[in-house]
């Protein structure tokens, strides 16, 4: 049993890992990620890669919505920007994979910066609707700027190749996506130990007060938009390498809502919440599919109801978490941890 953690310096109090236990757990998590491919099923590898791409993107939206309090309904459009950037540069110039991904993030960040501009004048839900408008306009550009985006047919993406190794299958792509995910999630965690991250949180909690204590709302809101879009862009770029085709219909408006739901269900304003949310929301359709298969002997029609039931459960999860557990899965996780940290005593 651990009684408490005495901190003797501010640095320790602000540390990335506050206790040795956390370090051990993190080590175990890394080991699990490295050992995961041993399961040998390329289907599981595909799911794992998809989950990690969604983790990156959800973490990005979490920075904007969960930490800075700016709701975005256009997150998927930034992913699309990243995917198109990768398709364009890799397809046209054959530039190296890592450079493409950085470019994908940078271009998305630039556009995110532009989309964030109205946040100077409008905020809250008006801003959310402005991001929706931006997503519609981006969709129009994807469809009609044919020389760059390939128009309605979209672009094909070459296989990701690093040091002569073709990352054609999810099994191999995993080794590209997994380290990037770990790095980006840790970077996000670190962001909130800095002045910038604290400014974001201050803006979320009370923007007027934040401004009064000297935080430039304009600068930090735009920075939050840019960082969030950077994450979306990188995720979109990896998505492009996984599916190897990008069309205007690859990232529908519904996808933006998916990420928003992942943030809410996971827990807005915590990094681990973004991870939980992305994993949970990506895997839940798979789980529903399995349970429907199991029900077939009793309800032969189970499968036909799968899609509508998926929609209903998706919506009910959003509503249910907002009403009953607004801090999301992360809060449940925290309570569980707390329980065991103090076990056998009760709080």
């Amino acid at each position, binding site marked *: 049993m651990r009684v408490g953690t005495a901190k003797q310096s501010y640095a320790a109090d602000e540390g990335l890992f506050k206790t040795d236990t956390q370090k051990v757990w993190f080590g175990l998590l890394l080991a699990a990620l490295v050992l995961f491919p041993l399961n040998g099923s390329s289907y599981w590898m595909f799911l794992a890669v998809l989950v990690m791409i969604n983790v990156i993107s959800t973490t990005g939206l979490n920075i904007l919505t969960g930490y800075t309090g700016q709701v975005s309904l256009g997150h998927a459009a930034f992913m699309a920007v990243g995917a198109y950037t990768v398709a364009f540069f890799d397809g046209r110039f054959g530039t190296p994979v890592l450079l493409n991904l950085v470019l994908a993030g940078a271009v998305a960040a630039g556009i995110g910066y532009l989309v964030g501009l109205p946040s100077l*004048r409008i905020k809250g839900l008006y801003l959310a609707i402005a991001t929706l408008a*931006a997503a519609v306009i981006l969709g129009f550009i994807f469809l009609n700027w044919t020389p760059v985006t390939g128009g309605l047919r979209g672009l094909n993406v070459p296989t990701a190749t690093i040091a002569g190794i073709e990352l054609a299958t999810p099994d191999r792509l995993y080794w590209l996506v997994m380290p990037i995910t770990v790095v980006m999630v840790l970077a996000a965690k670190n962001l909130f130990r800095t002045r910038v991250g604290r400014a974001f949180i201050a803006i979320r909690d009370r923007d007027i007060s934040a401004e009064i204590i000297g935080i430039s709302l304009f600068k930090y809101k735009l920075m939050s938009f840019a960082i969030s879009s950077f994450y979306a862009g990188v995720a979109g770029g990896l998505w492009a390498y996984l599916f190897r085709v990008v069309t205007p219909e690859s990232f529908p408006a519904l996808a933006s809502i998916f990420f928003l739901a992942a943030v*809410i269900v996971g827990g807005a304003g915590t990094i681990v919440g973004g991870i939980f949310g992305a994993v949970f929301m990506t895997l839940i359709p798979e789980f529903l599919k399995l349970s429907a298969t199991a029900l077939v002997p009793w309800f032969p029609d189970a499968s036909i109801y799968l*899609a509508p039931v998926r*929609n209903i459960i998706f*919506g009910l999860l*959003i509503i249910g978490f907002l009403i009953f557990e607004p801090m999301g899965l992360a809060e449940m996780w925290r309570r569980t941890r707390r329980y065991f940290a103090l076990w056998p005593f009760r709080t």
Partner: protein
Amino acid sequence: MAVEFIDIVETSLAGIGTGSLMALTGVAFVIIYKATKVINLAIGEMLMIGAFVFYGFSAGLALPIWASVPLTLVVAALIGGLIERTMIRPLLKDNPVSVFMVTIGLTSVLIGVVELVWSAEPRRLPEFLPSQPVLLGDAFIPSKTAYSFVIAAAAMAVLITVFAFWRGGIALRATATDRAAASSVGIDVPGVFSFSWMLAAVVAALAGILVGSVGGISSAMGLFGLSVFVVVIVGGLDSILGALIAGLFIGWLEAMVGRFMGGEFKLLATFTILLVVLVVRPYGLFGTHEIERL
């Protein structure tokens, strides 16, 4: 290509016809916003479920129109009340962003329910509007456009009268102006919340029946709600008059853009206007400019 004058007139009339339906749906949105300050992203889906309930009564159970319409409106009111009590009320004291996201979840639930009961296939409503086209001078107006315009206009006249004279309508306006004051003069504020959602659901269902009779119904018809957002933002979130004028204007604009530039530019045009209005005049043309205080 020379643009004929009669062409412009006809396109404008058709656009205003569609615009009247947007205006009606916009009014439903405004009723909810005025009373509960909730931005209801699911307004398009509330319209959709109204249309499907009507389909269930009129085509599924084969009831006559004069019975189906009132039954639909009653069911819609119940659905509206249910949504308010179970999903909105628990969160009204929280920040508006949470409630907003609840309505996003509601979107998905309503689509799921419709697909569960009626499947995702597109359907047509039984014909109940006269099919004789209307001629206004030389200008030709498709019958459904004309009659749905008349019905929408009548419904709006009723609503405006209700707000102006009926006790319930006045209570709603009082609550919108100042909740605490309304409560202290004996207005049942939670009752007004429920009432506003029920009324909005009824109005949306009526709009759904009209929209469905013009273009058929499907689980994707909630997309109509996208144009309605533009309408209410342009008009001002809390202004019935704004929704009316902006509705007619956006309907007209979409028709003109569709006619003279092509259908692919419709959404682009309306959303560009939306962005401009948001940046230049965020509270809309007729909305109340809220001043934020600490």
